[in-house]
């Protein structure tokens, strides 16, 4: 009974030994997962920072004269390529783990991804190309030669990124008004309205965080509508004095030109 009650040392040691060896493998796995998580979080933070900078850059030139604007968009594409470079690094980290689509670590990367989509879609819009598609975004984040995605862009990431875009468009529309540009606010208003209307039809359970963001979009749309309203009232008062409108617009453009010459 002694034998049975406490198995012989050798057997016990062997189980314990065996377990230790197995768990040392787990330790290595967990340690490397943690380290990978950290690296991805750091990359995601850096992507967020760069994307925010790109958005500021876009705002700076968006309401300038055509020449300055074109230069700004050109520079923006350079900055955007730098951000892609970070995604390529993300892909390297993911591939180490054999997780080539990035599903396992998606939660760590998605904050940066959403911010990037926001900046990319803003750039796309300012280039006069309307709303970027999910496949365009995916294509941007894929190896240009093989077409293999660096990480999968989910429709959630896309929708949430576009939702944030409406906030930037609101800023853009308001800034545009100051330069005497009467067309941009109306055009942005239509665009944001269309986006919001489409989003309104998405059943809320399909994508939970959208509900809160739609409130923000609604506030942005209302601000844009107020800009258009102010514009209409101004146009009404100036209806019989178009020369003043022209004067004011010219004044604004002159300012923009001066900037460009500098």
């Amino acid at each position, binding site marked *: 009974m002694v034998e049975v009650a406490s198995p012989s040392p050798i057997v016990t040691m062997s189980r314990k030994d065996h377990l230790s060896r197995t768990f040392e493998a787990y330790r290595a796995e967990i340690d490397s997962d*943690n380290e990978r998580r950290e690296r991805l979080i750091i990359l995601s933070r850096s992507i967020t920072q760069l994307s925010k900078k790109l958005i500021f850059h876009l705002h700076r030139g968006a309401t300038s004269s055509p020449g300055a604007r074109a230069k700004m968009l050109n520079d923006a594409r350079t900055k955007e390529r730098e951000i892609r470079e970070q995604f390529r690094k993300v892909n390297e980290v993911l591939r180490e783990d054999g997780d080539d689509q990035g599903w396992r670590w998606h939660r760590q990367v998605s904050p940066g991804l959403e911010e990037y989509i926001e900046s990319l879609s803003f750039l796309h819009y300012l280039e006069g190309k309307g709303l970027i598609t999910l496949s365009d975004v995916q294509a941007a984040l894929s190896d240009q030669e093989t077409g293999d995605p660096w990480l999968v862009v989910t429709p959630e990431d896309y929708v949430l990124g576009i939702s944030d875009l409406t906030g930037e468009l609101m800023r853009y529309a308001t800034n545009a008004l100051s330069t005497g540009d009467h067309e941009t606010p109306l055009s942005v208003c239509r665009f944001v309205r269309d986006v919001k209307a489409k989003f309104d039809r998405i059943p809320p359970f399909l994508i939970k965080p959208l509900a809160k963001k739609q409130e923000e979009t609604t506030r942005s749309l209302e601000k844009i509508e107020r800009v258009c309203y102010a514009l209409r009232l101004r146009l009404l008062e100036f209806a019989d004095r178009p020369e003043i409108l022209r004067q004011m617009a010219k004044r604004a453009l002159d300012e923009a030109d001066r900037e460009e010459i500098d």
Partner: protein
Amino acid sequence: MSITAVKDQRRSVEEALTQAITSLEAEQSLKKTIREAVDPLDDVARSALSELNLLHSIPSSGHAALCEKCLATVATSKSHWTTVASLIPKGEFYRYQFAIGPTLRSFVTAIAMAHFLLKDELIPVFAISSLLGIGEGEIILSAEDYLQGVIGMVNELPRLSINAVTTQNFFLPIKISAFVNDIFASYSLLNLRNDALRRRFDSLKYDVKRCEDVVYDLTLRGLTPAPTSA
């Protein structure tokens, strides 16, 4: 903005968002399908655990048969796992893990318990995968799910130890205590983050203590052979 430009802009919104929404809906519908395919697996897991619950009230002579029965119940899940595996697109397991992981953990708990009572060892991951028939397909039994499931089993052991004494089985508590000690030592090798696994690991030391207390109680009353130097 010309009317054409206005129309172009509107069309781009319509097309881009329709594309995204369609893909959202497809994803959502797949999630639902997977969740529904997992439901019968939850039922199997509940049955298996409920069978094992009888361990606490029957005499130890019946334990082996009960464990075999539990493993047989587990085996009935294979075809369901095949179904679930077939639903998951290649390489996308982690996208759906949230729906599958908790079920996997319950299976680990049940299987590891039965295996321990039958073989006095901790069943390794690959053996569980093969019992469930998920070795080849898209389903992954991750380290985290395995480790959590095993803790689930250990959490049951102090109760089993105590009820064994109630049914006059003074051998099982010693076997349990040794096992729990080994497992605790193994988990101690891990460096954990402040996550769910860490919290569950923290609970382990109370199980170790509880199982040892039973052995102390028995030793004191001369109900076990005195421990040898191992």
